[in-house]
């Protein structure tokens, strides 16, 4: 069996040699490589016309030996020249300059024809690669182990101005947003000042007191004080609610007498149907005085 295979190879070898014109491996240099270097090798195969490299016979990227990886394989054809660009990477940590053998590999050339295809094996020969150590094996003795390390490189000097300006700008924008939020939520210092309900009433009453006396004016004056009381109480205040109101707002207790007279007069004016009688009991000036006293108490409170 083995004899038969040897015979077959001999028969096939004859024409194959005839079809191959030459194989050449070219390397930029065969020495001076360090750990991790990429090695570019170019294999040129000169063949008979019509032949092409069989893609499946090309070497696969991956580890070649324990110290060498094949990183990339590219092929091109120039007429009858078939060119392989091979990129190796060496991982050999040499401790002295030495030459290592890069193994060769087989390729197959094929030519297709109507009555079948012809193949021709090509043996790419191995080649040697000169590898060198990165540094001496035994460095000079140092007192401080830290001296074995190279000093850190100087960092580039950065310009702080743009970053500072951006921080300032964003800070100002943040404060502005906070102010707007505080205003929206009525936080300090935007807390709404308590409405000066009685101050408005006192102003209105003073304005009416300056004008001519009339029933409508008198009613309007009473209404102004009513609205002030409503605003202060938070709801509509009727005469019977006066005690309740004064219990809730002790600041106005001093005006109990005046308020009681005001409510009595207001009842007569609006519901008793006698503005004249109401005015006799409580002239508008007196209502104005009560409103002023209430406004003063309101400011003090």
């Amino acid at each position, binding site marked *: 069996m083995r004899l038969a295979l040897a015979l077959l190879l001999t028969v096939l070898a004859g024409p194959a040699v005839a079809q191959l014109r030459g194989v050449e491996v070219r390397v930029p240099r065969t020495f001076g490589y360090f750990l991790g270097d990429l090695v570019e090798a170019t294999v040129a195969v000169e063949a008979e016309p019509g032949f092409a490299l069989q893609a499946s016979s090309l070497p696969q990227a991956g580890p070649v030996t324990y110290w060498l990886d094949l990183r990339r394989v590219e092929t091109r054809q120039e007429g009858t020249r078939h060119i392989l660009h091979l990129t190796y990477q060496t991982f050999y940590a040499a401790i002295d300059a030495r030459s290592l053998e890069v193994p060769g590999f087989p390729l197959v050339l094929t030519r297709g024809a109507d009555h079948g295809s012809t193949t021709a094996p090509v043996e790419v020969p191995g080649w040697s690669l000169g590898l060198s150590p990165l540094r001496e094996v035994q460095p000079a003795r140092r007192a401080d182990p830290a001296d074995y390390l190279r000093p850190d490189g100087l960092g580039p000097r950065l310009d702080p101005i743009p970053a500072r300006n951006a921080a300032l700008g964003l800070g100002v924008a943040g404060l502005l947003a906070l102010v707007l939020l505080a205003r929206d939520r009525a936080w300090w210092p935007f807390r709404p000042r308590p409405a000066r309900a009685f101050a408005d009433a006192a102003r209105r009453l003073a304005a009416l007191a300056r004008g001519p006396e009339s029933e409508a004016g008198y009613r309007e004056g009473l209404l102004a004080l009513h609205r002030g009381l409503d605003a202060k109480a938070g709801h509509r205040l009727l005469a019977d609610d006066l005690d309740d109101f004064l219990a809730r707002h002790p600041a106005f207790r001093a005006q109990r007498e005046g308020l009681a007279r005001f409510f009595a007069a207001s*009842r007569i004016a609006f519901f008793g149907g006698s503005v004249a009688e109401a005015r006799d009991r409580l002239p508008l000036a007196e209502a104005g005085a009560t409103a002023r006293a209430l406004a003063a108490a309101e400011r003090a409170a």
Partner: protein
Amino acid sequence: MNDIRRGDAMLTDWRAAAQAFEAAVAGAVLGQERIIRLVTIAVFARGHVLLEGDVGVGKTTLLRAVARAMGGAYERVEGTVDMMPTDLVYHTYLAEDGRPRVEPGPVLRSSEDLAIFFFNEINRARPQVHALLLRLMAERSLQAFNREYRFPLLQVFADRNRVEREETFELPAAARDRFLMEIGMEAPRDPATRRALAFDPRFHDTDGLIAGIPTGLLDPARLGGIASAIQHGVRASEAIQAYVVALWEALVRPHEAGIRLPGIDDMAGLVQGGASPRGVAALVRAARVRAWLEERDWLVPEDIRAVFEPVMAHRVFLEPIHELHRSEIVPALCRAVFETVPAP
């Protein structure tokens, strides 16, 4: 502030009678001055009253005391599930001679003098009975024994237990509207009153308590006349008329008056109806009586406020989804209405 015209001595005399009536009832029913005042107002406004409250807070005692203090013919029935309208009108029985007899029932027994008809546990009676009662209250008349009976003096008092819901029938809206007031009654909160109610043996014997009340303080036959005199005697100024209309508007359309209640998103759809013109007329009637009792011959907003909730609350109908919580929503709505509408 006695502004009642001096010449109108009758109103003054009657006010004294009303005060005596209130005092007599208050002697038997402790700590319910507000309820007694409302019932007095209803008596002088000639309106029917529905009392609502827990078991044992004194609803029945109060109404019995009122009936006794008032005087006049008095009838009482207890609402039951199997009660039929004819049970109110006719009394049927087998006589000694074995023949069936039909005689006037509770409503007809006192004939046309009937002054107080007291319907206990009204929500236990069936809608048929409510329908009869509706006519009795609205028209003060009844068809029986092939003729029409009229009850010019009639005033209906009813009470209702609000705890139990089983085997009860809710009053139809029309019947509820016929009640001048629907008064919610609660046990007094005052500790001294509570102690007296719990420990004083006088309050344990209800019959004895009622028997101790002076009777006949108000003459039912003359109440109609005095009620009419009060309605004509108490003035309502332009301002109070505007105020009542504004209250009415705010109650029916609270969202337009700017009223917001907590927990209710859709204020526009909250009030579905009710607050009828009859209700507002009743409100003014009751308020006038209150003004008269307070010795005024003109209305003030406080008069309206004092009677607003008992008169108006049961006439407001809410969106069905809120009906379950009406006992919280309607009082809150009434309060909000008064806190929103300006007076004057």
